[in-house]
């Protein structure tokens, strides 16, 4: 585990220095080339704004109205008989939809139960099981103005469900 955390820490400086050094050794004009790329990165980032506003508006509307909580309670009545703790159900719904929302909810669960408690472990696993699907799909497809997103979105959500299920099963094995 130590080694993995070192890889995570040192990959950044190694790439940040290594790539320009390699390019310089190949005779690339590093500064001008970097700036040209940065300009493209700037355009890509700005181009995603309309798509993100559209999706964030719809998701905030759904959350702020209380519709998400209604969904969570009805999903909870299906999932709790299967052994999923009721407090985890909102996390399952928010995780694919809102990154900051899920992080806040996980933080809340960890604080309430303690990070090393059985519930804290489950919340941590579910939080790490997948990324914010709606955000990734919107950002990636929005940046190339691609509208055929239906199948991909559905696939990613099915994937999220598989990830949650696997996380839950592993948790049952080790902590419950």
């Amino acid at each position, binding site marked *: 585990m130590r080694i993995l*955390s070192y*890889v*995570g820490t040192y990959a*950044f400086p190694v790439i940040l220095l290594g*790539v*320009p050094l*390699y*390019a310089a050794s*190949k005779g*690339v004009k*590093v500064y001008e*080339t*970097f700036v*040209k*790329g940065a300009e493209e*990165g*700037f355009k890509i980032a700005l181009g*995603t704004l309309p798509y993100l*506003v559209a*999706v*964030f*508006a*719809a998701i905030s*509307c*759904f959350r*702020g*109205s*209380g*519709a998400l909580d*209604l969904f969570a309670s009805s999903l909870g009545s299906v999932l709790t008989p299967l052994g999923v703790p009721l407090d985890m159900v909102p996390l399952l719904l928010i995780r694919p939809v809102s990154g900051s929302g899920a992080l806040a909810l*996980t*933080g809340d669960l960890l604080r309430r139960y303690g*990070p090393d408690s059985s519930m*804290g472990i489950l919340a*941590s696993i579910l939080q*790490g*099981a*997948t*990324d914010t699907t709606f955000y990734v799909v919107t950002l*990636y497809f929005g*940046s*190339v103005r*691609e*509208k055929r997103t*239906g*199948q*991909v979105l*559905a*696939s*990613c959500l*099915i*994937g*999220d469900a*598989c*990830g*949650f299920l696997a*996380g839950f099963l*592993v*948790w049952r094995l*080790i902590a419950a």
Partner: protein
Amino acid sequence: MNFVWMFLLSTGCVVAVLTGNVDAMMTSVLDGISAAVELVIGLIGVFCLWVGIERLAEESGLIDVLARMAGPVFSKLFPGLKEKHRPLGTVTASVMSNVLGLSSSTPLGLKAMSEMKELFGERREGLDSMARLVILNAAGFCIFPSGVIALRAALGSRAPAIIAGPTAVAGLAATAGGLLAYHWLSRSRRPGDGR
């Protein structure tokens, strides 16, 4: 996406009116769109940095090296990108960044998307390759989920990294499930379905 968007908006508005939550809903929407703008502003710097570095890797031939290294594994997942070093190398760099938990994952991913769009236009194989990249990065399989671990450590966990193994299993399942689901869905449904 059209369906999901309309569903979220209409359910949200109807529930808000029925439960008298209109004010809360409105505040939430306004906060949400400001959050989108703040997010993009935050992304600009990271995007400039990593797409700049990627351009260096591209012009120096490092992307080709990466594409050749990843070829045996990734040409199975991205059949359309075989022998096409430019998107393949960038795709590899993005997925590897994601696995390592680096901030370069999204900028490189979007760069790869624009390269694939340029290469394939509206062709179906382009959509399939883009879809697979999105599925890989949306599942976010990561060998060291530094965000959750940092949160656990900050809240006083005695073993913050203990969840890395289970999380990796869950991430693998999410990736495999997403890829399999896409495989089935893209066979059974007509291409170009706008939903």
